[in-house]
């Protein structure tokens, strides 16, 4: 009994220490999925300088921690984004920009843009604005860091637990064999 509880404590404590370090070096995947990506270069370069938060762009999904969905997501992109997300190694987080991934935004009636991203991928954080200003992006990143430290940003665990549900939703959009209307 004592042994198991100390083991639990050990595991939890260890995880907490890991989370503390993880939040200090987030690497975001350099993949521009939508128009919000145009505000990323100013965020990364000298004026706002993202690197003071220990963040930087990373070219390959295998070494990235953060997937940014910068705005709307068309069906064709969704397929690539899911591939990319599944290639990333745990722990991994997803940030959605603007109103488009929440309910479709200005493209609510478009035949090609998905309306709610949370049906297909677990979203840890949404940043408001069309498009979000660099300040808003940095604010979102610091919020994510706090959530990671507290152990609240667990989208990737949710994705693993409810894998079947997410796959069903994804298949409905990507592998349809009959007309919709």
């Amino acid at each position, binding site marked *: 009994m004592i042994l198991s509880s100390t083991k639990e404590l050990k595991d939890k404590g260890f995880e907490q220490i890991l989370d503390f370090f993880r939040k200090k070096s987030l690497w975001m995947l350099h993949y521009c999925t939508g128009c919000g990506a145009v505000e990323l270069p100013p965020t990364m370069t000298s004026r706002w300088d993202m690197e003071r938060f220990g963040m930087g762009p990373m070219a390959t999904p295998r070494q990235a921690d953060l997937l940014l969905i910068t705005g709307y997501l068309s069906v*064709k992109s969704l397929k690539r984004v899911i591939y990319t997300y599944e290639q990333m190694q745990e722990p991994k987080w997803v940030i959605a920009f603007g109103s488009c991934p929440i309910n*479709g935004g200005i493209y609510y009636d478009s*035949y090609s843009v998905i*309306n*709610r991203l949370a049906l297909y991928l677990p979203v840890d954080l949404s940043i408001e604005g069309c498009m979000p200003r660099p300040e808003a992006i940095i604010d979102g990143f610091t919020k994510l860091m706090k959530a990671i430290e507290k152990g609240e940003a667990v989208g990737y665990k*949710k994705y693993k637990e409810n894998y079947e549900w997410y796959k069903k939703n994804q298949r409905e*959009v990507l592998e349809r*064999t009959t007309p919709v209307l």
Partner: protein
Amino acid sequence: MEQKELIEHIEKNFKYKKEIKVIDGKQFTITVEKDKVLNLLSFLKLIDFKQLALITAVDWIDEKKFEIVYILFSYSHIQQILVKTFVDRDNPQVETVKNLWDVASMYERDVHEFFGIDFIGNDDLRPLILHNWKDLPPLRKDFDSLKYSNKMFGKFKKDEEI
């Protein structure tokens, strides 16, 4: 050539039935039968209308017709010509112009995908932009985009979500 001379020149030298309408000082439309499009376009290319700016279509659903528009430009006359033709909406077919301009092949692929118009002679009409499309071509007027979006992406309730 000025616009007036140019129109006169076309009137005189292109014998088939046509209708010319001036939009403004820099552009005018020529409407021809669909089997004379290729003749007109090659004639215009000879009189220095070398740039094919766009091929597009308009769905006139009430008249049951598709209008196909070829937009040409000449760098020497500084004039824009909109060549138009009408095809039947139930059997939309027109000859390809990809032998005149290479760029036409991609525009035709685009129009084929969004309107379902067939270009005879263009063998590369694979889907270009849409992913796994099973419905009506989306830019046709009888395709309801909002209904499609609601049915495909919008059917969720807040409490259903994980």
